[in-house]
């Protein structure tokens, strides 16, 4: 092999090596893009809801009202007969089997939607009014194009008869979409079209607040002690080793801790944001202490020496000068730690946050779910409608995480002093 050939070979090796690096970076970036694109394409349809417009005859004789018509008497009234009568009018039915199929075009809450409309517009009584009613999950998915229509009937969730009604309604322009406010206001449900993340949003909110209240002050105090006051001895070393190890302990172990100590020994209420917050704060604590200590360490010794030289005590030096200067770093570390806690699922499953909770929790001691647990719960459901709901929940979760990380980066870039 001549010198030139050898050189060429070496340069080719150089090019190949660089190419491997470029391919790896692009693979990683492509993974991010595929993941985000996949979630968004699945989830974006969850933000709209299919409605079917029905002529409802608010016949007061069907309501069996025994008192004068007002808001309260309407609230107590039974709208079932009235609702069924109006809904069945949208298409002729031969027998009770077909009637049931018509009713199954609508979400099981049709009775209450019809009732709510009248309570909002009490002057419509004894009139025939067009009312928009939420369609069932199957019709919703059909309308969004997620169900292939050309399958044989026994492999479809929608029968031929229902398809005929659907096409008929589409022709009459009775089917339309509106913004899905249920997604944000309702709790969990077995019916995808009625399920919302209102409950898990509140659950996550309470959990994160408790986690913040518990972990932020303790983390800051611990890092101030370790960075500024701790003598170099065995206890300090032991604490440091502990913190470093705890930061790397798998999150599921914290779930076992919560289950074994908080739930079974201390008997805290199960499935509540309170227990979730405490468990997550134990997990987040070391993850906050580490960046807090780093930002305290980054404050140059000259600041401390200047304060000490004009007669400040050690405490005054630390609390009047070092801590305020380190604040942007500690805050951004805390926010990033909380963002991790917000996305954590495994420990919450172990402390029972997987319970099916319909009601939206109003305090940290009410049973509830949280956003990531909701993702897990819905992803186990078979209905197609839950796939888009799950993806939408993930979009919300990622949205929160992006906002939190953005705030953390902003805090650091805007307020942190560069010392050199």
């Amino acid at each position, binding site marked *: 092999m001549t010198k030139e050939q050898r050189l060429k070979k070496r340069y080719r090796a150089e090019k190949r090596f660089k190419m491997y690096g470029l391919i*790896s970076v692009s693979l990683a970036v492509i993974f991010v893009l595929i993941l985000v694109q996949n979630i968004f394409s699945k989830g974006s349809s969850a933000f709209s809801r299919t409605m079917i417009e029905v002529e409802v005859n608010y016949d007061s004789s069907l309501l069996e009202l025994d008192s004068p018509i007002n808001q309260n008497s309407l609230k107590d009234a039974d709208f079932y007969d009235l609702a069924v009568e109006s809904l069945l009018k949208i298409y002729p039915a031969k027998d009770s089997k077909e009637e049931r199929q018509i009713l199954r075009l609508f979400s099981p809450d049709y009775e209450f939607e019809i009732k709510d409309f009248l309570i909002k517009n009490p002057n419509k009584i004894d009139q025939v009014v067009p009312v928009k009613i939420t369609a069932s999950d199957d019709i919703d998915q059909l309308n969004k194009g997620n169900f292939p229509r050309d399958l044989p009937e026994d492999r479809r969730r929608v029968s031929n008869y229902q398809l005929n009604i659907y096409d008929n309604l589409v022709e009459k322009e009775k089917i339309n979409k509106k913004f899905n406010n249920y997604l944000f206001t309702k709790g969990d449900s077995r019916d995808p079209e009625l399920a919302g993340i209102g409950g898990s949003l509140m659950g996550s909110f309470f959990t994160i607040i408790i986690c913040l209240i518990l972990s932020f002050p303790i983390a800051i105090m611990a890092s101030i002690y370790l960075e500024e006051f701790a003598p170099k001895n065995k206890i300090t070393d032991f604490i440091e080793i502990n913190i470093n190890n705890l930061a790397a302990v798998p999150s599921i172990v914290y779930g076992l801790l919560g289950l074994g100590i908080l739930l079974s020994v201390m008997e805290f209420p199960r499935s509540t944001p309170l227990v979730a917050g405490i468990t997550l704060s134990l997990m987040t604590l070391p993850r906050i202490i580490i960046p807090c200590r780093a930002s305290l360490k980054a404050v140059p010794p000259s600041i401390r020496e200047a304060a000490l030289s004009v007669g400040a005590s050690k405490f005054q030096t630390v609390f009047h000068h070092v801590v305020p200067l380190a604040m942007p770093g500690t805050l951004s570390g805390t926010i990033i730690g909380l963002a991790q806690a917000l996305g954590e699922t495994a420990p919450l499953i172990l402390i*029972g946050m997987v319970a099916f909770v319909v009601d939206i929790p109003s305090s940290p001691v009410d049973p509830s779910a949280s956003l990531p647990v909701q993702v897990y719960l819905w992803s186990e459901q078979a209905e197609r409608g839950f796939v888009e709901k799950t993806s939408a929940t993930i979009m919300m979760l990622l949205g929160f995480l992006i906002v939190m990380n953005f705030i953390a980066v902003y805090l650091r870039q805007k307020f942190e002093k560069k010392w050199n």
Partner: protein
Amino acid sequence: MNSLIAGVILILCLSSYFFGRSEARKLVTQNIKLKALPAYYGYYLSLWCGLPALIIFGCWSLFEPTIIKVLILNNFPQIESKDLFYEQTLSFFNGNFSGEITNEIKAASIKYSSINVIAQNSKIVIIAAALISSLTFAYRKIQNNNKARDDVEIILKVLLFTSSLVAILTTVGIIVSLLFESLKFFSTINIFEFIFGTSWSPQRAFVRDASAITPEELLELQDAFGSVPLFAGTAFIALIAMCVAVPIGLFSGIYLAEYASTKVRKYSKPIIEILAGIPTVVYGFFAALTVGPFFRTLGESLGLTVSSESALAAGLIMGVMIIPYISSLSDDVINSVPQSLREGSYAIGATKSETIKKVVIPAALPGIIGSILLAVSRAIGETMIVVMAAGLAANLTINPLESTTTITTQIVMILVGDQEFDSPKTQAAFALGLTLFIATLILNYIALRVVKKYREKYD
């Protein structure tokens, strides 16, 4: 009631700060030279006012329910299921009990209400006594012009120290809770059966009460908890993950550190780090709903049978999750290799890639190995991806297209939903947790040691 007490204590704290400060200022008007700034006298009084009362209040609230429970149940020695009985009494007392109301429940709830009143009253009295005595004590100290700042600083230092002890407490809590249940588990199941047994089927252990196991049942149980398939599955999925993450992560790290222009680096590094910030449940969803079915249809078209919960799908996605841990850590260690080493290599005519391969990577090797070990520990502790995308059945296999299960999956599967304590099945989850804890602890310890040793070399 509790929030009222806490509120009163906090308001007293706040007002005693201002009171202490103004008292100190009065001393100044009497021509006494203060030993600290007036505000410190305020802090002093406020701390003395709040701390003892809050500590008593906290301990009381923590132990009150247990003590009341014991007091009440002592009166009813004949009741068999004491916990249930107490629950019923409480719900009857709160007026939302549905079920058969027995005389015992009525009697217990009357007892409960009387004890409750006594407890409430004595709580208020004791806290008030603590408040008054500690306030008088601190007030007299102030009047004598004590060294308020030194005292405040000592108290604060103790507070700071205590909060740093939380880390130790957490570790102790983890070890105690895991060990306690695991020891109970190992008293029914032979530890060697657990570590070396090859069949895992905890659903066979439906025995409710661990103390009433017959010898036949015990024999039956012994081989239901062989965790070798779980260890193997965990290691296997972690191996697949590392096969994805190590090359991609390492090459990305090298590329970003050595080749990439500032512009490429500025944009691609944060994008790769997004992968580390995405919650694992999202990866699990993606693996279970997109990647798993994709592999199955791909396998079908190639004539292979691929389980929709294949180890490959879970491992691949886990590998993607781990890429940023390896890439950013190795990026860091490569950057901290001194420039002089590279220049020496260039000077004798090596190309860039030769320099990287022969000089930079050997120098950065301990750091890279450390980062890989940390990534392995993350892979074996990862839960949601495997729970959602890997299988539940424990089968020993090295075929990546079949489904396997992992330690974390089994912990979740055992503990999800309601579980009865004191059954070997539940305790098995804690034993698995203990194994996981020890394994990750060892990996992290080695990794940190390796990284630390390397840092000392070049700094």
